């Protein structure tokens, strides 16, 4: 039998039993669609995080208190606090390093802001004038924190766009007095909206000089020191020099962790890639289930068409011909199912992107190839058994079933 005839025969056979055929096509389609949508979700999360970190500013190096065991970055030890303090003086000392373009201290805490008769919880970030350029923020109105001695802060504040909106609405905020905790501060600037970054929504942050924040929270420690290297190539030098300087300043003890944006990115990238792969693996189980369904559908087909198989043998069909016809049918079910599922999955990812425009939910290529490949192989693999059963049927017995 010619291969084109085998294919046509298999196609007609599949079309001859629409319910059974659409059922297995559907199962296969759902499996593939699940892989495509879920990996689009996972990879979307990865891209989202990577984009966020890229938005932090280039050549960023972050110093945090506490020594991490591996020297690398992990979300766990980023959160641990240590008794050893990181101070404003430490931060200032780093500005004199040759490889450092800028450095900014960062003290953080929660407080309440009240002004214009309104009260609101805010995140307070105590920092310095250099922070604006390190993070590549832009001003909407006024100016950022003034330059000057980091250990003696002026009673001024810069507010994020959302705070401005909620407290002052359309009226100007620059020049107004606000109460932050027990301090009275004058607003000198409003930031342009930037959105999420470094784990906090910058639009809901009040920036004050580091010294003001420290006295507000009655502490002299820093949460972080942010550093911008002179160039990408000098990031390693920054790491080395910063570690050396702070070690000297801390009585010879290396009690800080220096992390680079690259390292953070690489970690998140790895983490979310692993997550995506895991999700893909789980979704792939539905493909195996679909494969088993195709097998059962084909077994039913063999039983239902036993008489026909007997006839084909009486008409001179070889065992191999019958096997090929049933294999082709299973392959077609899987193929149509896989591509329908691919289409459905792409549509699902499209809907996701429409619903959450910030979320780049595109399925990664490897996932698409793996899903289609798995669908076709399971379909074929699970098609072998029923096809062989059909080929081995005894023609006399088969012909009696009609």
């Amino acid at each position, binding site marked *: 039998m010619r291969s084109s005839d085998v294919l046509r025969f298999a196609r007609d056979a599949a*079309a*001859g039993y629409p319910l059974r055929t659409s059922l297995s096509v559907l199962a296969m389609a759902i499996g593939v669609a699940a892989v495509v949508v879920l990996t689009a979700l996972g990879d979307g999360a990865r891209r989202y995080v990577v984009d966020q970190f890229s938005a932090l500013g280039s050549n960023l190096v972050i110093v945090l208190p506490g020594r991490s065991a591996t020297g690398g970055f992990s979300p766990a030890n980023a959160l641990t606090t240590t008794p050893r303090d990181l101070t404003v003086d430490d931060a200032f000392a780093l500005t004199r390093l040759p490889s450092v373009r800028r450095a900014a201290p960062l003290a953080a805490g929660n407080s309440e802001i009240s002004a214009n008769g309104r009260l609101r919880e805010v995140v307070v970030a105590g920092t310095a004038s250099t922070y604006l350029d390190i993070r590549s923020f832009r001003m909407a109105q006024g100016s950022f924190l003034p330059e000057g001695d980091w250990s003696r802060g002026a009673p001024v504040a810069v507010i994020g766009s959302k705070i401005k909106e909620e407290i002052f609405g359309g009226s100007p905020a620059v020049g107004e007095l606000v109460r932050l905790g027990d301090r009275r501060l004058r607003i000198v600037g409003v930031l342009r909206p930037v959105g999420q970054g470094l784990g906090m929504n910058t639009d809901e942050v009040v920036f004050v000089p580091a010294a003001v924040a420290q006295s507000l929270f009655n502490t002299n420690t820093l949460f972080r020191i942010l550093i911008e290297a002179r160039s990408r190539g000098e990031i390693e030098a920054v790491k080395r020099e910063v570690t050396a300087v702070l070690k000297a300043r801390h009585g010879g003890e290396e009690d800080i962790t220096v992390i680079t944006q690259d390292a953070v990115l690489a970690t998140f990238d790895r983490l979310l890639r692993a997550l995506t792969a895991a999700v893909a693996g789980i979704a792939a189980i539905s493909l195996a289930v679909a494969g088993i369904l195709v097998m059962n559908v084909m077994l039913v087909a063999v039983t239902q068409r036993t008489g*026909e198989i007997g006839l084909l043998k009486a*008409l*001179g*069909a*070889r*065992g191999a011909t019958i096997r090929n016809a049933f294999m082709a049918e299973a392959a077609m079910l899987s193929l149509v199912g896989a591509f329908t599922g691919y289409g459905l999955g792409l549509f699902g990812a499209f809907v996701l992107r429409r619903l959450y425009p910030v979320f780049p939910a595109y399925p990664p290529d490897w996932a698409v190839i793996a899903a289609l490949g798995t669908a076709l192989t399971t379909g074929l693999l699970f098609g072998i058994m029923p096809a062989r059963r059909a080929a081995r049927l005894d023609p006399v017995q088969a*012909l009696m079933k*009609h």
Partner: protein
Amino acid sequence: MALIELAGIERVFHLGDSAVHALTRLDVGIEAGEYVAIMGPSGSGKSTLLNLLGLLDRPDAGTYRLEGRDVTTLSADEQAAVRSRRIGFVFQSFHLVPRLTAAENIALPMMLAGMAAAERARRVATALKDFGLEQRADHRPDQLSGGQRQRVAIARATVMQPAVLLADEPTGNLDRATGDDVINLLEALNAHGMTLIVVTHDQKIGSRARRQLMMEDGELKFDSARPAAVAG
């Protein structure tokens, strides 16, 4: 040389402990172009014999020579090739593929044999014309009458121009008039030289054949070609 030579054929079915001797000590020769009716009571082994002649089944003992060639020792694929080219089957229940049209059903053996589409189409057209089915080419089996279905089945059985046509109760599912039409059709094919072997319960149909084989309990009780030799 006879077209079909059976010598010492035995066929035993085992059902648990008991053995059913469906065919015993069978020696028959059939010449090319003969018209043979196989008759006998139910369970006498008629269908078993026909399946054996059609290479759908293998004997437990004895030899079967078709056109001088021992076909019992052939591999399954070689037997399939012989079925494809030399043997045509007609069944009591027609055995048409329900999703295929009359034309497609007729084309089936040629498709299985890997014949080119153009040659297939040519032969199907001829067959439809010869069997008066031109108006029914695109009808599916459920849109055909019983007689038309059996005509499609006969067209399919003969389209490869086999050496022998095997028919098991070809009129069993048809009324008398339609059955007679089908027998006339088969006899016309025989008149053109095709060897015809028909299994039937019907005395009237059986007596129309030039040669009768009477089966009983798996044995050949009577052969009209050799009245003295077999009886007893």
